[in-house]
């Protein structure tokens, strides 16, 4: 036992420290007009609609890193819930030495996960990203106000064909040592039709919005 406390235990601690030092943070930046989105800040889109965002949450899944078209890392967590209000969710820990020039991920939760029962962690329905009346995860949720005090809510999801909304995102990087991923939402908010202010269920409109999102980010 003494051996354990005097030698093995410190070694364990040391090795866990080493592992942490071996990682670096890859920061997700959620941007409009090249600036981080700030909740309740006023934005203006090209149709001169003033809007504010007060909630922004979404899932990314199957995050993979590539170097010269070869996969170099598949992120250990299959689904990550990104929440603008939770700073930790915007940080992804990757090996310090990882070099990559491309990443791919899905915006949303895949069909199998949507169909295979109760899950915990980021996929816990308690996170408010699960429809209770109609099984399925909300892939992307944004809520806010436009033109003064009109509410808008977009809960984009649905995995059943033809209304599947999961979108593949592919991003290329010039530097091999990138430490941030920028997701631009300019196009999404520029092209959105605020007069359709509530889209809260799977269907044609949700598919349109998911395509808009993918085009905006890609």
């Amino acid at each position: 036992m003494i051996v354990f406390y005097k030698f093995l235990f410190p070694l364990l601690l040391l090795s866990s420290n080493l592992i942490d030092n071996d990682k670096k943070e890859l920061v997700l930046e959620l941007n409009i007009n090249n600036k981080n989105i700030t909740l309740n800040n006023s934005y203006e889109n090209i149709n001169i609609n003033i809007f504010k965002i007060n909630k922004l949450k979404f899932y990314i899944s199957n995050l993979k890193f590539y170097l010269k078209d070869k996969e170099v890392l598949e992120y250990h967590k299959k689904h990550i819930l990104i929440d603008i209000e939770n700073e930790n969710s915007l940080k992804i820990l990757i090996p310090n030495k990882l070099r990559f020039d491309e990443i791919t991920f899905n915006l949303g939760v895949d069909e199998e996960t949507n169909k295979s029962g109760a899950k915990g962690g980021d996929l816990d329905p308690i996170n408010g990203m699960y429809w209770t009346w109609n099984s399925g995860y909300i892939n992307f949720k944004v809520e806010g106000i436009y033109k003064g005090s009109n509410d808008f809510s977009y809960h984009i999801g649905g995995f059943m064909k033809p209304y599947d909304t999961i979108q593949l995102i592919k991003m290329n990087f010039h530097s091999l040592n990138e430490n941030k991923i920028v997701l631009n939402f300019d196009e999404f908010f520029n092209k959105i039709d605020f007069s359709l202010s509530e889209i809260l269920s799977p269907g044609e409109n949700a598919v349109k919005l998911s395509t808009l999102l993918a085009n905006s980010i890609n």
Partner: protein
Amino acid sequence: MKKYTSIILALVVIVILVYLCRIKNLTTLNYPKYFPSVEYDLSKNPIDKDKIELGKMLFYDPVLSKNNQVSCASCHSSYNAFAHTDHKLSHGINDKIGNRNAPGLFNLLWQKEFMWDGAVNHLDMQALAPINSPIEMGESTRNLISKLQKTNYYPELFYSAFGDSIITTEYLLKSLSQFQLTLISSNSKYDSVIKGEAKFSDKEKRGHELFKNNCNSCHTEPMFTNYEYKKNGIKEDSILKDFGRYNITGNINDKYLFKVPSLRNLKYSYPYMHDGRFEKLQFVINHYSEINIDNNLIHLNNKEKVDLTAFLLTLNDKEFSLNKNHKFPLKLIEILYQ
């Protein structure tokens, strides 16, 4: 060093004993050989006595609703094959009336999709719908978890079941599934006949033949449903305006399609159809012999209707409706009325 070896040995023995205890708690679900292969993936939620008991407590506990007055059992009574006998539409929190008839709960191990329109695609996720519905239990999952955590008995029960006293949605849903998976109805007269332990009367035999020729394509033996969505020929209710499966798929061809219900335990599950509009079995049979659904007319004369009814009544499972293991848990009575 010898001292440590004995301590380590003792620890190993304890670990093995604890493990064996856990195994002892693992149990199996029994069902007849002629039942099809199961739909629920038990490897993701292995059946365990403590989890079943916990699920039963939760099923009967009105704590699941916002005002602590409505439980799952409020609309799914064990005495009635877990249906809501004599209620056309289910009643929810503050006497709100729902928009569908509560179905019986049995043989869920074989069921892929839930609710009359198949809105729910997994048994685990089913409970979220009534818990969060403003006209059923009116609660939020988050608040429910925190209410359960604050009780002086649930953390312990979750610990026994999952080895963790921090209650999560996943544990809650999986234990509710476990109890519901134990609700297997396979002891009707029909089952006894299939097992070779009983014989149909002549009337029942004739009814069975009529059934095979006219009903079996949708209400397929031995589960008495093909688990598909079909038109039932019922005219749309002007108030409920229920489009059935279309509400979920958005496919115009799915308008007025509803899940084919099992015909087991009809004695207990009246009134019938998704909106409970037929009070008696006789009315359902008359409906199908009068209405032409997609060029299918089931024409039966009065004698044949009597025979068919006689057969359908052999699907009632009295043993299931009286099964003591499914009743209100004594532990909960002690807690609620202490």
